[in-house]
């Protein structure tokens, strides 16, 4: 198929259709409402269901009911909306249902702002809802990758019977880029013998998350854990950009930040500087081993995020022992230019930056 120039939010909607999804339930919120507007037009054309729910609470529970009835289903939202969905995400994880969430992150906390941010990393990767569960989280850095991730998300959700989140930011949503939708080789969803679609002669199917017997609940928790172990073994994805070389500074960034950092890195490498980048593509499961190995070849690590420091915690506990870890973040919707990131890298290179870990330790000692 030929490439098509599309806005990120619309490409995300089309990618879901290309993945065979015909059931979308959502509530409007900036900066991703174009996904809903696009699908309000597009779903009827493919005999799909578009439904504007009364709230994100309801939208996510509609996904619950639809996924339990065996269909591919997804929603898109932004940070405050995902907070409201977190209740049902926990139930959906507990009940082991395949559901896809798109989070086009905006600044927080609270109503925050409507500009790009990466401040929902903790919420996406470390919980959000209650209980021992994980979302599988993908962080695209281009519109094409957002398309690929949305399609992959449906497959992974079905494979693991687990909710999957594609987490981008307003830049991904608003950017116009040429994209391609694979039409061949799109695998049909696997059979879902567990779905609640009427017994029709077989024993009862039951979709639930309540286990009053402690051993039964523990069994469900261990079943979930086994899935997360399998994800950590089989689904880790990352991009290595000169990170397999000896580096003086290894940048770690994801999503659009990685893209801007790449421009800065190219500039510095042009000047003969030894800079590389490790870009996590799956945020959960996190590429811990790749970070450890790349950081063992680095003199210092610089984590760049649109937050005051969230993913950096995962980098800290993944990195090779003894390597200094620095952090550079912007928030509120402010986006660093490549030169800003370049300056930070140079500061680290020249030993003018204080590694992040020294701050709390020094203060504790005083």
């Amino acid at each position, binding site marked *: 198929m030929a490439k098509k120039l599309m806005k990120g939010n619309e490409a995300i909607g089309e990618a879901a259709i290309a993945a065979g999804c015909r*059931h979308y*339930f959502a509530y409007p919120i900036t900066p991703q409402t174009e996904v809903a507007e696009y699908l309000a037009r597009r779903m009827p054309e493919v005999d799909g*269901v578009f*439904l504007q*729910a*009364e*709230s994100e*609470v*309801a*939208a996510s*529970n*509609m*996904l*619950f*009911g*639809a*996924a*339990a*009835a*065996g*269909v591919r*289903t997804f929603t898109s939202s932004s940070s405050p909306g995902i907070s409201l969905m977190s*209740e*049902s995400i926990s*139930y959906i994880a507990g*009940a082991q249902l395949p559901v896809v969430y798109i989070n086009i992150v905006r600044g927080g906390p609270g109503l925050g702002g409507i500009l790009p941010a990466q401040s929902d990393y903790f919420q996406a990767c470390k919980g959000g809802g209650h209980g021992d569960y994980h979302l599988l989280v993908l962080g695209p850095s281009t519109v094409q990758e957002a398309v690929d991730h949305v399609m992959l998300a449906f497959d992974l959700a079905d494979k693991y019977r687990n909710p999957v989140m594609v987490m981008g930011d307003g830049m991904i949503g608003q950017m116009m880029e040429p994209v391609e939708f694979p039409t061949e080789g799109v695998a049909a969803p696997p059979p879902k013998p567990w779905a*609640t*679609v*009427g*017994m*029709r*002669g077989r024993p*009862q*199917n*039951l*979709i*639930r*998350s*309540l286990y009053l017997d402690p051993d039964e609940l523990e069994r469900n928790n261990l079943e979930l854990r086994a899935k997360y172990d399998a994800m950590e073994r089989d689904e880790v994805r990352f991009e290595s950009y000169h990170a397999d070389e000896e580096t003086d500074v290894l940048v770690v960034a994801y999503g659009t930040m990685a893209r801007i950092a790449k421009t800065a890195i190219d500039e510095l490498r042009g000047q003969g500087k030894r800079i590389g980048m490790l870009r996590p593509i799956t945020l959960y499961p996190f590429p811990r081993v790749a970070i450890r190995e790349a950081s063992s070849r680095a003199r210092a690590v610089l984590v760049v995020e649109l937050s005051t420091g969230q993913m950096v915690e995962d980098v800290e506990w993944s990195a090779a022992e003894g390597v200094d870890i620095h952090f550079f973040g912007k928030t509120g919707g402010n986006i660093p230019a490549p030169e800003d990131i370049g300056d930070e890298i140079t500061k680290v290179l020249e030993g003018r930056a204080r590694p992040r870990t020294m701050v709390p330790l020094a203060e504790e000692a005083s």
Partner: protein
Amino acid sequence: MTAATIFQRPQSLTERITHYCPGCTHGVIHRLVAESLDELGLRESTVGIAPVGCAVLAYHYFACDFQEAPHGRAPALATGAKRARPDLTVFTYQGDGDLASIGTAELIHAANRGEKFTIIFVNNAIYGMTGGQMAPTTMPGQVTSTSPAGRDVDQVGYPLRVAELVATLRTPSYVERVSVHSPGHIIDAKRAIRQAFAYQKEGRCFSLVEVLSTCPTNWGLTPLASLKWVEENMLPYYPLGLKKSPEDEV
């Protein structure tokens, strides 16, 4: 003379003994739903949605597929299931805390969209499962663990009349309030529940049957006194009868 079976367990009920308290009318309502599914030949294509409340384990007693919703969200799950598979018969079974308090938004909007599933709404004027707290449907002056001096309508308002509330919506639907405190009322409740499923089978409209029910345990009454309490206290405030029919003019 050969023996003939004149009464038996509906196919839509399992043989499992319920966990409901002695004298609780949840069991009667389960039976009426099950008989209706049997008679309309719907059991094999039915998906029930369980609430959070005493009926959370309803799926052990109904012989059909089931989903278990977060507290109050059953109408949203039912919306998703029915939109995904319009060929299925979908019903929710919800208490008054679940449906009339935490789940009010999901109820009103599902009804207003005219989602073609059925809600069995069990109004027992109290939160049963959590041990007898005040519900939006608790009667004025009724003592509960969170209204120890009786429901004070100046502070918390009057009990919510769900059937009347839903009947104000313009979207066509079937809404009726029934009770199960006497054999005659049980027969009438059966008619209404069956009618609700019949409308769903025809793909006709949203349907809600509010059933006045007992909670002897948390009312602190015997089963018999509870039935009398429904008659004397609930019926005057919650008038029985048809509130809205799809035949009504829009």
